[in-house]
Protein backbone atom coordinates (compact mmCIF):
# COMPACT_ATOMS: atom_id res chain seq x y z
CA UNK A 1 0.00 0.00 0.00
CA UNK A 2 2.90 2.29 0.45
CA UNK A 3 4.94 4.03 -2.13
CA UNK A 4 8.13 2.40 -1.12
CA UNK A 5 6.92 -1.13 -1.53
CA UNK A 6 5.91 -0.13 -5.02
CA UNK A 7 9.24 1.42 -5.59
CA UNK A 8 10.98 -1.61 -6.96
CA UNK A 9 8.23 -2.01 -9.56
CA UNK A 10 8.20 1.59 -10.61
CA UNK A 11 11.94 1.72 -10.80
CA UNK A 12 11.95 -0.82 -13.59
CA UNK A 13 9.28 1.15 -15.41
CA UNK A 14 9.81 4.74 -14.40
CA UNK A 15 7.68 6.01 -17.26
CA UNK A 16 4.63 4.74 -15.50
CA UNK A 17 5.15 7.04 -12.59
CA UNK A 18 5.88 10.02 -14.75
CA UNK A 19 2.84 9.56 -16.94
CA UNK A 20 0.47 10.00 -14.06
CA UNK A 21 -0.58 13.60 -13.65
CA UNK A 22 0.71 15.40 -10.60
CA UNK A 23 -1.51 16.50 -7.78
CA UNK A 24 -1.41 20.00 -6.46
CA UNK A 25 -2.97 20.95 -3.18
CA UNK A 26 -3.16 24.69 -2.96
CA UNK A 27 -2.74 26.74 0.17
CA UNK A 28 -6.47 27.05 0.79
CA UNK A 29 -6.86 23.30 1.06
CA UNK A 30 -6.46 21.46 4.29
CA UNK A 31 -6.63 17.74 4.66
CA UNK A 32 -6.82 15.54 7.67
CA UNK A 33 -6.21 11.95 6.82
CA UNK A 34 -4.11 9.58 4.79
CA UNK A 35 -2.81 10.50 1.37
CA UNK A 36 -1.57 7.85 -1.00
CA UNK A 37 -0.24 9.15 -4.27
CA UNK A 38 1.37 7.21 -7.08
CA UNK A 39 2.42 10.49 -8.56
CA UNK A 40 4.09 13.73 -7.76
CA UNK A 41 2.29 15.52 -4.99
CA UNK A 42 2.74 19.19 -4.17
CA UNK A 43 1.36 20.47 -0.91
CA UNK A 44 0.84 24.18 -0.54
CA UNK A 45 -1.82 23.87 2.11
CA UNK A 46 -2.13 22.01 5.34
CA UNK A 47 -2.03 18.28 5.75
CA UNK A 48 -2.32 16.45 9.01
CA UNK A 49 -1.76 12.77 8.56
CA UNK A 50 0.28 10.19 6.78
CA UNK A 51 1.52 10.75 3.27
CA UNK A 52 2.85 8.23 0.80
CA UNK A 53 3.89 9.56 -2.57
CA UNK A 54 6.27 8.99 -5.41
CA UNK A 55 7.60 12.48 -5.09
CA UNK A 56 6.46 14.90 -2.46
CA UNK A 57 6.99 18.64 -2.54
CA UNK A 58 6.06 20.77 0.40
CA UNK A 59 5.85 24.21 -1.11
CA UNK A 60 6.82 27.31 0.83
CA UNK A 61 3.78 28.03 2.93
CA UNK A 62 2.85 24.37 3.02
CA UNK A 63 2.28 22.82 6.39
CA UNK A 64 2.55 19.11 7.04
CA UNK A 65 2.18 17.32 10.31
CA UNK A 66 2.75 13.63 10.03
CA UNK A 67 4.91 10.98 8.55
CA UNK A 68 6.02 10.89 4.96
CA UNK A 69 7.13 8.01 2.83
CA UNK A 70 8.33 8.86 -0.65
CA UNK A 71 11.08 8.29 -3.11
CA UNK A 72 11.95 11.93 -3.35
CA UNK A 73 11.03 14.68 -0.94
CA UNK A 74 11.52 18.41 -1.32
CA UNK A 75 10.72 20.46 1.74
CA UNK A 76 10.17 24.17 1.33
CA UNK A 77 7.54 24.65 3.99
CA UNK A 78 6.80 23.50 7.47
CA UNK A 79 7.11 19.90 8.45
CA UNK A 80 6.60 18.27 11.77
CA UNK A 81 7.08 14.56 11.64
CA UNK A 82 9.19 11.88 10.13
CA UNK A 83 10.40 11.50 6.59
CA UNK A 84 11.46 8.23 5.01
CA UNK A 85 12.96 8.94 1.62
CA UNK A 86 16.18 8.04 -0.16
CA UNK A 87 16.50 11.53 -1.61
CA UNK A 88 15.63 14.57 0.43
CA UNK A 89 16.08 18.26 -0.29
CA UNK A 90 15.54 20.79 2.45
CA UNK A 91 15.25 24.26 1.04
CA UNK A 92 16.09 27.54 2.64
CA UNK A 93 12.45 28.34 3.34
CA UNK A 94 11.95 25.07 5.18
CA UNK A 95 11.10 24.66 8.82
CA UNK A 96 11.55 21.07 9.85
CA UNK A 97 10.88 19.69 13.25
CA UNK A 98 11.45 15.98 13.31
CA UNK A 99 13.69 13.44 11.73
CA UNK A 100 14.61 12.65 8.19
CA UNK A 101 15.63 9.12 7.30
CA UNK A 102 17.54 9.52 4.08
CA UNK A 103 20.19 8.17 1.81
CA UNK A 104 21.09 11.45 0.13
CA UNK A 105 20.18 14.79 1.60
CA UNK A 106 20.82 18.40 0.85
CA UNK A 107 20.03 21.15 3.29
CA UNK A 108 20.08 24.73 2.13
CA UNK A 109 21.65 27.51 4.09
CA UNK A 110 18.91 29.30 5.94
CA UNK A 111 16.76 26.26 6.53
CA UNK A 112 15.43 25.80 10.01
CA UNK A 113 16.03 22.26 11.10
CA UNK A 114 15.41 20.85 14.51
CA UNK A 115 15.87 17.13 14.75
CA UNK A 116 17.96 14.34 13.41
CA UNK A 117 18.87 13.09 9.98
CA UNK A 118 19.71 9.42 10.25
CA UNK A 119 21.37 7.91 7.20
CA UNK A 120 20.09 4.61 5.87
CA UNK A 121 21.25 2.41 3.01
CA UNK A 122 19.09 2.24 -0.08
CA UNK A 123 18.03 -1.30 0.79
CA UNK A 124 16.40 0.06 3.93
CA UNK A 125 13.96 2.11 1.88
CA UNK A 126 13.25 -0.68 -0.56
CA UNK A 127 12.19 -3.02 2.18
CA UNK A 128 10.15 -0.37 3.92
CA UNK A 129 6.55 -1.27 3.29
CA UNK A 130 5.08 0.41 6.30
CA UNK A 131 6.09 3.06 8.72
CA UNK A 132 8.50 1.68 11.24
CA UNK A 133 8.20 2.54 14.88
CA UNK A 134 11.05 4.72 15.93
CA UNK A 135 12.02 6.04 19.30
CA UNK A 136 10.53 9.46 19.95
Amino acid at each position, binding site marked *: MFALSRRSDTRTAPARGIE*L*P*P*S*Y*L*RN*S*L*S*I*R*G*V*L*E*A*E*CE*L*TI*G*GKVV*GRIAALKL*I*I*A*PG*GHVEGDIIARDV*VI*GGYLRGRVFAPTV*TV*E*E*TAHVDGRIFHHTI*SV*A*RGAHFDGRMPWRPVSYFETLDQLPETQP
Partner: protein
Amino acid sequence: MTIFNRNDKPADAAAKPPANDIVQPQKPVERPQATAQPLSPPAKTGASMPSVISKALKITGQLESTEDIQIDGEIDGDVRGVGVKIGNNAKVKGTVYGDEVELAGTIDGKIEAKKVILNGTARMSGDVVHQDIKIESGAFIDGHLKPEFGKTGSKPASVSTLKPVTSVAPAPEKSIEARH
Protein backbone atom coordinates in the same frame (compact mmCIF):
# COMPACT_ATOMS: atom_id res chain seq x y z
CA MET B 1 63.40 58.20 -11.20
CA THR B 2 62.34 54.84 -12.40
CA ILE B 3 61.90 53.83 -8.85
CA PHE B 4 59.64 56.78 -8.21
CA ASN B 5 57.72 56.06 -11.35
CA ARG B 6 57.23 52.51 -10.35
CA ASN B 7 56.25 53.52 -6.91
CA ASP B 8 53.68 55.91 -8.29
CA LYS B 9 51.88 53.27 -10.25
CA PRO B 10 51.59 50.75 -7.45
CA ALA B 11 50.50 53.59 -5.25
CA ASP B 12 47.71 54.32 -7.69
CA ALA B 13 46.90 50.70 -7.97
CA ALA B 14 47.04 50.37 -4.24
CA ALA B 15 44.74 53.33 -3.85
CA LYS B 16 42.04 51.62 -5.88
CA PRO B 17 42.12 48.10 -4.49
CA PRO B 18 41.20 49.19 -0.99
CA ALA B 19 38.00 50.54 -2.44
CA ASN B 20 37.49 47.23 -4.22
CA ASP B 21 38.32 45.32 -1.11
CA ILE B 22 35.49 46.99 0.67
CA VAL B 23 33.06 46.09 -2.04
CA GLN B 24 34.33 42.64 -2.76
CA PRO B 25 33.80 40.97 0.59
CA GLN B 26 30.06 41.27 0.12
CA LYS B 27 30.08 39.25 -3.07
CA PRO B 28 31.76 36.12 -1.74
CA VAL B 29 29.45 36.16 1.25
CA GLU B 30 26.37 36.13 -0.94
CA ARG B 31 27.59 33.58 -3.38
CA PRO B 32 28.64 30.32 -1.76
CA GLN B 33 25.57 28.24 -0.98
CA ALA B 34 22.75 30.36 -2.23
CA THR B 35 23.48 29.67 -5.87
CA ALA B 36 24.32 26.08 -5.16
CA GLN B 37 20.71 25.37 -4.29
CA PRO B 38 18.25 24.75 -7.08
CA LEU B 39 15.22 26.95 -7.29
CA SER B 40 12.32 25.43 -5.51
CA PRO B 41 10.09 23.41 -7.86
CA PRO B 42 6.91 24.49 -6.07
CA ALA B 43 7.47 27.96 -7.47
CA LYS B 44 5.00 26.92 -10.14
CA THR B 45 2.15 28.15 -7.98
CA GLY B 46 -0.52 29.07 -10.48
CA ALA B 47 -2.64 32.16 -10.09
CA SER B 48 -6.20 30.88 -10.21
CA MET B 49 -5.61 27.17 -10.50
CA PRO B 50 -7.74 24.99 -8.31
CA SER B 51 -6.29 22.35 -6.07
CA VAL B 52 -5.91 19.23 -8.15
CA ILE B 53 -6.30 15.76 -6.79
CA SER B 54 -5.11 13.67 -9.68
CA LYS B 55 -6.21 10.18 -10.49
CA ALA B 56 -3.10 8.77 -8.88
CA LEU B 57 -3.96 10.18 -5.50
CA LYS B 58 -6.10 8.51 -2.93
CA ILE B 59 -7.13 10.35 0.19
CA THR B 60 -8.69 8.84 3.25
CA GLY B 61 -9.89 11.67 5.40
CA GLN B 62 -11.42 15.09 5.26
CA LEU B 63 -10.71 17.87 2.81
CA GLU B 64 -11.50 21.48 3.39
CA SER B 65 -10.84 24.34 1.09
CA THR B 66 -11.85 27.95 0.71
CA GLU B 67 -11.24 27.66 -3.01
CA ASP B 68 -12.04 25.36 -5.87
CA ILE B 69 -11.11 21.71 -5.88
CA GLN B 70 -10.71 19.46 -8.86
CA ILE B 71 -10.96 15.81 -7.95
CA ASP B 72 -9.88 13.10 -10.34
CA GLY B 73 -8.72 10.65 -7.73
CA GLU B 74 -10.31 8.70 -4.98
CA ILE B 75 -11.53 10.17 -1.74
CA ASP B 76 -12.88 8.33 1.23
CA GLY B 77 -14.23 11.09 3.38
CA ASP B 78 -15.96 14.44 3.30
CA VAL B 79 -15.07 17.25 0.95
CA ARG B 80 -15.79 20.89 1.62
CA GLY B 81 -15.00 23.45 -1.01
CA VAL B 82 -16.40 26.36 -2.92
CA GLY B 83 -16.41 24.95 -6.40
CA VAL B 84 -15.95 21.22 -6.42
CA LYS B 85 -15.48 19.42 -9.72
CA ILE B 86 -15.44 15.67 -9.62
CA GLY B 87 -13.94 14.27 -12.79
CA ASN B 88 -14.84 11.34 -14.92
CA ASN B 89 -13.10 8.53 -13.14
CA ALA B 90 -13.10 10.06 -9.71
CA LYS B 91 -14.71 8.38 -6.75
CA VAL B 92 -15.87 10.05 -3.60
CA LYS B 93 -17.24 8.17 -0.67
CA GLY B 94 -18.70 10.74 1.65
CA THR B 95 -20.45 14.05 1.65
CA VAL B 96 -19.50 16.80 -0.75
CA TYR B 97 -20.32 20.31 0.40
CA GLY B 98 -19.87 23.35 -1.77
CA ASP B 99 -21.32 26.33 -3.50
CA GLU B 100 -21.17 24.61 -6.81
CA VAL B 101 -20.62 20.92 -7.28
CA GLU B 102 -20.11 19.44 -10.70
CA LEU B 103 -20.14 15.69 -10.86
CA ALA B 104 -18.90 13.58 -13.74
CA GLY B 105 -17.63 10.72 -11.64
CA THR B 106 -18.99 8.70 -8.79
CA ILE B 107 -20.23 9.77 -5.41
CA ASP B 108 -21.33 7.31 -2.83
CA GLY B 109 -22.73 9.55 -0.16
CA LYS B 110 -24.33 12.92 -0.36
CA ILE B 111 -24.09 16.26 -2.09
CA GLU B 112 -24.98 19.46 -0.32
CA ALA B 113 -24.51 22.41 -2.59
CA LYS B 114 -26.26 25.50 -3.79
CA LYS B 115 -25.75 24.58 -7.39
CA VAL B 116 -25.39 21.01 -8.52
CA ILE B 117 -24.50 19.81 -12.00
CA LEU B 118 -24.69 16.13 -12.78
CA ASN B 119 -23.00 15.32 -16.07
CA GLY B 120 -23.90 12.46 -18.33
CA THR B 121 -21.25 10.24 -16.85
CA ALA B 122 -22.21 11.02 -13.27
CA ARG B 123 -23.13 8.25 -10.92
CA MET B 124 -24.69 9.48 -7.74
CA SER B 125 -25.66 7.09 -4.98
CA GLY B 126 -27.24 9.11 -2.26
CA ASP B 127 -29.21 12.25 -1.66
CA VAL B 128 -28.64 15.58 -3.28
CA VAL B 129 -29.48 18.65 -1.27
CA HIS B 130 -29.46 21.59 -3.62
CA GLN B 131 -31.01 24.87 -4.53
CA ASP B 132 -30.38 24.70 -8.21
CA ILE B 133 -29.73 21.52 -10.14
CA LYS B 134 -28.89 20.49 -13.66
CA ILE B 135 -28.97 16.87 -14.69
CA GLU B 136 -27.72 15.74 -18.04
CA SER B 137 -29.07 12.74 -19.83
CA GLY B 138 -27.15 9.65 -18.87
CA ALA B 139 -26.60 10.58 -15.27
CA PHE B 140 -27.38 7.88 -12.76
CA ILE B 141 -29.04 8.88 -9.54
CA ASP B 142 -29.99 6.60 -6.73
CA GLY B 143 -31.31 8.87 -4.05
CA HIS B 144 -33.51 11.80 -3.30
CA LEU B 145 -33.25 15.28 -4.70
CA LYS B 146 -34.03 17.77 -2.02
CA PRO B 147 -34.28 21.42 -2.99
CA GLU B 148 -33.62 22.41 0.58
CA PHE B 149 -30.13 23.76 0.53
CA GLY B 150 -29.84 26.55 3.04
CA LYS B 151 -33.25 25.83 4.51
CA THR B 152 -32.54 22.88 6.72
CA GLY B 153 -29.30 24.31 7.96
CA SER B 154 -28.92 25.81 11.38
CA LYS B 155 -28.86 29.20 9.65
CA PRO B 156 -31.92 31.18 10.75
CA ALA B 157 -31.57 33.73 7.96
CA SER B 158 -31.82 31.11 5.26
CA VAL B 159 -35.00 29.69 6.76
CA SER B 160 -36.78 33.01 6.52
CA THR B 161 -35.81 33.53 2.89
CA LEU B 162 -37.58 31.14 0.62
CA LYS B 163 -37.24 32.60 -2.85
CA PRO B 164 -34.60 35.26 -3.43
CA VAL B 165 -31.22 33.98 -4.44
CA THR B 166 -29.44 37.14 -3.36
CA SER B 167 -30.31 36.97 0.28
CA VAL B 168 -29.49 33.29 0.45
CA ALA B 169 -26.09 33.87 -1.04
CA PRO B 170 -24.23 34.42 2.22
CA ALA B 171 -26.08 31.55 3.83
CA PRO B 172 -24.26 28.61 2.26
CA GLU B 173 -20.92 29.62 3.64
CA LYS B 174 -22.25 30.01 7.11
CA SER B 175 -24.17 26.78 7.02
CA ILE B 176 -21.04 25.03 5.85
CA GLU B 177 -19.15 26.58 8.71
CA ALA B 178 -21.79 25.47 11.13
CA ARG B 179 -21.35 21.86 10.21
CA HIS B 180 -17.64 21.80 10.78
